[in-house]
């Protein structure tokens, strides 16, 4: 049985997929994940998930974000007075996300 492994670097971080292990049950999967994936890189926590329990939808089946112009939902569309600090930070994140979407 194959278990997908997700590692969290430190408390508060997201668990990120880092590999998989063979194991007969959850307890052993956690042990093997610890040995294979939690030994060298900073690790605060590991998740193991049976591979067949993972569902997936990808760009072949879905149009993530739709196919029409959605500029109205992006902060940079709106030219107004200089924004408050946290609003500007949000805009930066949005711009970055949109740029990456364009690259993909």
């Amino acid at each position, binding site marked *: *049985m*194959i278990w997908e492994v997700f590692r969290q670097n430190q408390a508060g971080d997201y668990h990120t997929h*880092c*590999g*998989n*292990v*063979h*194991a*007969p*049950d*959850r307890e*052993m999967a956690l042990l093997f994940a610890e*040995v*294979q994936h939690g030994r*060298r*890189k900073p690790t605060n926590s590991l998740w193991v998930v049976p591979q067949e329990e993972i569902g*997936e939808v*990808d760009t072949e089946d879905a149009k993530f974000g739709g196919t029409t112009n959605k500029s109205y939902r992006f902060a940079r569309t709106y030219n107004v007075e200089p924004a408050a600090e946290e609003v500007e930070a949000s805009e930066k994140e949005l711009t970055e996300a949109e740029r990456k979407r364009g690259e993909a």
Partner: protein
Amino acid sequence: MNVEETKARASPREFSPKDDLPEEYRKAATRMLEFHANSEIMGAYLERPFIRKAPSLERKMAFSAKVQDEIGHGQLLYRAAESLGVKTRDEMLDDLAEGKGKFLNCFHYPLESWVETPMIAFFVDGAAMRRQATLKKSSWEPYAHAMDKICFEEGFHVKHGESILGELMNGSKKEQEMTQEAFDKWWPRILQFFGPTDDQSSHHDFAADVGLKVMTNDELRNAFLNTYLPKAKKYGLEIPDEPRIRENDDGTYDVVEDDLDWDEFFTIAKNDYEPGVGQIEGRKHAQDAVEWVRNALDEQEAIAAGGQSPQAAD
């Protein structure tokens, strides 16, 4: 996808288990990965005795960590291999035990003396890492992912090997002589690590066309020599006169192929070389000795899957 479509799409990390790949691709990728995985395992068995034989506690601990890493790399690569759907992990491990699984030429030779350890831990691992770094761009995504983790860990192996070499070559005259002797013995094998020259290599064309590998044997050998030849000299090792190595004006090297023992190389490639046969047998014994562990795990898996625990009839 047919072969032509696969070649057209081939690029780094392009294909994953979700893709419908032609059998030719899956077989070629399995052959590469299985060879790589087997090599990790056989290399680990070769170095394992040096956990005991190493001359200091630090070296023992480093060898222990290294051997553990290599076994882990084998496991990662078997995972990347079996996801191609050609062979299961068990089949590959059994083939290795039965002498059918192929692995790196250098791991068919005995490793007996401490002065020999940097020949593997520095030169062979250095050569391997040079190759592995290029495989981060392999078209089989699970292979590239395994390389991310393997290269992350391998840096320690190569530097640890270099540290041993530096220590020996700064040691007593006797240590220096013994290390030179080991180098003379291992150098031709290390040059053969990258296989025959491109015009003699049988598997390269297809593997390159579908993006499984991105550099040829010759390019990798050159890249290795560019870095490791000066390093060997820097530590005071004399490069043997044969095999002859010609340095070209463009920074590339030509190794005179006729100076290398290709009969021995191809005997090794068939798993018929005597010391290598012993090393395959040695691993088989180790695998047999822990069969009860694998059986216990399989039993546990059956129970976890909702099956019945087998009756204790035996």
